[in-house]
């Protein structure tokens, strides 16, 4: 059985039927909002995204734009092991490894690009990282851009620590901690 709902539409009254009155009423509403917003733009609920960033709620732990953590001597914690590139389902990470001649950590990323236009913000790279070098906690949500190249994050734009981030040592990396220790870094 198909259930049928009977709708009892009220017949239009005379004012509604002559049409122009209702049109004028509608335009009056629009005009009222127009002037209200024109003279009081702060009351606008619209957010000018992406120029105007949205503050994230309280202690929200969203996955936001990536960053590469930095050791206390300014070198990236990343050792270019390619785990994130391997885990990435969107193929948005491109790494080129290079070798430190002096630093006993041996390996570092000469190039570390994340193409945010391809990134699906899944966080697999963070999960995969054995060095705790990549994080998605910048609280910036990648926004719109006029050009694809603006979405390309390079090593330089990714490298940063959060203000006041404790323990900048190499975390799990014994070689890094020893190297930093030998240079007298905390």
């Amino acid at each position, binding site marked *: 059985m198909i259930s049928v709902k009977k709708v009892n539409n009220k017949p239009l009254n005379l004012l509604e039927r002559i049409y122009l009155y209702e049109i004028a009423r509608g335009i009056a509403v629009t005009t009222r909002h127009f002037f209200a917003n024109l003279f009081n733009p702060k009351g606008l609920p619209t957010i000018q995204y992406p120029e105007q960033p949205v503050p994230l709620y309280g202690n929200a732990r969203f996955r936001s734009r990536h960053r590469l953590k930095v050791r206390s001597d300014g070198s990236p914690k990343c050792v270019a092991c*390619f785990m994130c590139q*391997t885990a990435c389902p969107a193929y948005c990470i491109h790494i080129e490894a290079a070798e430190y001649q002096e630093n*006993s950590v*041996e*390996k570092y990323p000469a190039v570390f690009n994340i193409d945010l236009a391809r990134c699906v913000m899944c966080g697999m790279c963070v999960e995969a990282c054995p060095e705790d070098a990549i994080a998605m906690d910048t609280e910036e949500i990648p926004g719109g851009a006029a050009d694809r190249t603006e979405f390309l994050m390079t090593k330089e734009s990714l490298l940063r620590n959060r203000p006041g981030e404790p323990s900048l040592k190499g975390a799990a*990396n*014994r*070689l890094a901690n020893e190297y930093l220790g030998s240079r007298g870094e905390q």
Partner: protein
Amino acid sequence: MPTITIDGKSIEVEKGTTLLAAAQKLGIYIPRYCYHPKLSISGNCRMCLVEVEKAPKLLTACSTEAAEGMVVRTTSDKVKAARRDVLEYLLINHPLDCPICDQAGECGLQDYYMDYSLARSRFSMADKVRREKRRPIGPNLVLDNERCILCTRCVRFCSEVTKTSELEVMNRGDHSYIDLKEGKALDNGYSLNIADICPVGAFTSRDFRFKQRVWFLKRTKTVCLGCATGCLVEAHHNENVIYRLVPDPNPETNTWLCDHGRLTYKALQAGDRLKKGVIKNGLIELEPALREAATRIDEARGAVAVMGSPWLSIEDNAALARLARDSVKTGDYCFDFNFEQGIKDGILINKDQAPNTAGVRPVKAAYGGISMGELAGRIASGKIKLLLTEARAAALLKDALKDSGTRVVVFAANRGEIPAGAYATLPYAAYFETPGTFINYQGLRRRTTPPVAAPEGVKPLWDVVNKLASYSGASLGLDSGDDALKGISF
């Protein structure tokens, strides 16, 4: 001929066969680190322990010879526990370098840990024995003593295969480590094999170092064309770039691969790789270069010589022969190469540097032609106005070409190959970019499989020859390499 039973399966093996080899025949895999089929048996890693009935203790499968009526178990609880414990021992002092270790992905420790152990370490990081980290050792290798599990494959390789004995285990017990003997350098021509046979990341290749993770690499079986030995190799490549060549062990030709052969792939990526034609010293597009070469050949008609090359495949040589016979219509073509062949150093490197000397013979048999001496004589006497050949073959006639006034048009893959004074150079797709047939010094026919594609616009040599003929108004009808092989029996 003893008959033994391994995991319930019986097999009759030759006297002297080890349990490990017998198991392999039955398709039962026994894990191993120090055992290598082409090296002497050492039995030090203890990874291949198996249970033999009536034997009081577990025995190493790699060093125990099969005896009549032996009953071997490779999957019993005792064996499993032994494998897990041996791995725990091997891993006690192993640093967790996997993120920066090139061996990760093809590492014996990683693989066996996943297969046979999965146990948590009971030893703290702080208690691990420390040794010297990365250190370049010889021109091709990096040694990291901390990662070493002292299986001594490298030591045995140097003393048994190359017989140069550069490496030795220094010190004793907990203090042992692999090092160079005093006054030696690890520069024998086969050192990169050590990086292959090292089951962990102690020896890694300097050339391959940090270039690519091994799990990204695709594998293509092809042939090394560094000399007439024609070893079978596997090219490891990704996104149209070859990263390394490793041997593809086979009973006919090679188990190993020499360092020279391993690095032949570098010519493809070298800065002087030709993607355009060269006229005198200037680069020009391929089409105008071809047209120019064809015009010069037409101009010199009647005094053109064509020479094949032992560096080219049979297809390419045959195409050149067709060009000489059907398009240039000259009798002055030479497919006569007689280099001394044979293994020079008792391992792999051949006396003959060219890969296809034996392969040019069937071309000569099918098309005839004059001998190299005759050709040299004619060039020296000034009868030949233009010589068309491959770059390295042109170098064979260097003396005759000097002051003869002969224009030389060559095919070359790299700019460095072009002989001095060449008039025009046409690029072609090199060994790793196009299929080709070669015959090695043993007379074995080897067909290459291209792992990568040639640079845009660069065609195989037979195709360039076909075009050259069509510019001169002749049709050779070569649509594929196989077309060129028609009429040649080998």
